[in-house]
């Protein structure tokens, strides 16, 4: 008797930091069908962006997502600079790379802790987040805020990096490197961690390509696509680094890729700090951006993030389109989840490191009718009770 239970996860669930709604129908412990419902995190940023000047837009676009705010800020600034054909001074480009790599470090450390938490390894969560504080202090030192740094503005950067901060950066990188090497050992050798991570959430290369996966999720299945190397922006063209991939294709593969990337970020920061060129921090940019459009891509911690901005000569953008990396990975998540165990849902979902506040930033309208046919955690429980009774 294959009793199908609908297991609703979200929109409020300890597994998810953000509201998304997965609905799995499961037989026993095997997942048979997975369905996703977005829209809970929807604020309507793009329509609002069309009614504010570029500077005000930057303030809001930076707050699309708490973990990758530098991604959206730099990407938007690049688009505006490309349309206005303004050349960003080298020092600003280097500072942007340093802050971007610091953000990748703190985002990956955050992911490592959350992945540990998802499989019940809370000590790993606590330890990973304790070391993340090192990065947060460095970020706060340079930009003045732990999250949503506000260091970018169209044409360049707002704050400089003093020599004292450069020494601090180097010291912080040494501490982090030693800690991350330890995590690499844990992730590759600790039996219970490996037991929960190896061999599950398999995403083979063909599906990853056809379903358009990006970032560590794709690189974990052997795809060597990294915006920093293939379409270099800010100072990545001048900084040597290598792209980490693994062709395991499972959650362990993505873990290896992310830890490898952290070590790469440390080397990038060290290189950038040593070769920080002198010069101005920003170039002048006119308030009214001439008509034109620009598509800019950025390698966010979760993958390729793309901004598409159209300007119409006034000081307000005509159209702003943001596509966050998680949206690309959501298509391929269904194939990684089918016929896996219920116990593995959290770690597989966490493996693509969903950042839903990015995915959902587009547009929703205010309405007063309160009818809803897809419901929440509580109502779904009633639905699943009715269904289970009917099936029992």
């Amino acid at each position, binding site marked *: 008797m294959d009793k199908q239970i609908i297991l609703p996860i979200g*929109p*409020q*669930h*300890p597994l998810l*930091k*953000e*509201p998304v709604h997965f609905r799995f129908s499961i037989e026993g412990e095997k997942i048979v069908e997975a369905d996703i419902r977005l*829209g*809970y*995190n*929807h*604020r*309507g*940023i793009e*329509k*609002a962006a069309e*009614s*504010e000047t570029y500077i005000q837009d930057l*303030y*809001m676009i930076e*707050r*699309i*997502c*708490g*973990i990758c*705010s530098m991604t959206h800020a730099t990407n938007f600034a690049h688009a505006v600079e490309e349309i206005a054909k303004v050349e960003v001074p080298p020092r600003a480009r280097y500072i942007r790379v340093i802050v971007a790599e610091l953000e990748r470090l703190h985002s990956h450390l*955050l992911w490592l*802790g959350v992945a540990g938490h998802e499989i019940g390894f809370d000590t790993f*969560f*606590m*330890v990973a*987040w*304790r070391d993340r*504080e090192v990065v947060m202090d460095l970020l706060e030192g340079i930009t003045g805020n*732990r*999250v*949503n740094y506000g260091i970018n503005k169209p044409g360049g950067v707002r704050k400089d990096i003093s020599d004292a901060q450069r020494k601090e950066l180097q010291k912080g990188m040494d501490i982090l490197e030693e800690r991350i090497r330890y995590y690499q050992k844990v992730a590759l050798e600790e039996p219970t961690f490996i037991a929960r991570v190896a061999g599950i959430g398999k995403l083979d290369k063909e599906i990853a390509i056809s379903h358009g996966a990006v970032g560590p999720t794709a690189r974990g299945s052997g795809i060597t696509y990294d915006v920093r190397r293939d379409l270099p922006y800010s100072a990545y063209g001048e900084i040597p680094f290598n792209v980490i991939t693994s062709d395991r294709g499972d959650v362990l593969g993505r873990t290896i890729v992310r830890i490898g990337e952290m070590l790469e970020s440390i080397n990038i920061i060290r290189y950038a700090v040593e070769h920080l060129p002198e010069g101005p921090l920003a170039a002048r940019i006119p308030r009214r951006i001439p008509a034109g459009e620009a598509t800019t891509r950025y390698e966010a911690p979760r993958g390729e993030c793309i901004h598409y901005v159209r300007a119409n000569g006034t000081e307000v953008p005509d159209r702003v389109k943001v596509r966050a990396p998680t949206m690309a990975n959501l298509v391929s998540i269904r194939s990684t989840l089918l016929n896996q165990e219920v116990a593995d849902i959290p770690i597989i979902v966490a493996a693509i490191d969903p*950042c*839903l*506040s990015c995915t*959902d930033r587009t*547009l*929703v*309208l*205010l*309405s007063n009718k*309160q009818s*809803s046919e897809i419901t*929440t*955690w*509580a*109502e779904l429980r009633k639905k699943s009770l009715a269904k289970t009774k009917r099936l029992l």
Partner: protein
Amino acid sequence: MKKLVGWAVRKSPWIIHFNAGGCNGCDIEILDALTPRFDLERFGVLLKGTPRHADIIVCTGPANEQIASRLKRIYDQMPGPKFVVACGSCAISGGAFRKCYNISGGIDKILPVAAYIPGCPPRPDAIIQGVYALIEKLKQEEEKNGKKD
């Protein structure tokens, strides 16, 4: 006996976290408050999964239209003396997204909010100070109606 129960409620506030469409900057800082450097467990605060076990619901984000009804429903499922904490400027007034018309402009439009924690995102120590202020408020209320009846 009432005093003892009041003491117990103040000493072990279990929280549940609800992200009402925010940018998850505040959510990370709330989780950060549980980690070694800021450790909320010193005050007996535990992050609980189900609304059934929680006393305080910490909401972040400007509560967009679709999630507002879910937020209300989760709040109704919480037992006994329950409090709402609005964490982050989005939760207080819609914050950076006040221009987007999809949001209902803050948690207090939906639930009775007991404590506000400003900041975008508030630092973990600000969040701890917020929870502590809520506990202080409980103490004063208790002394107030302690004298009354």
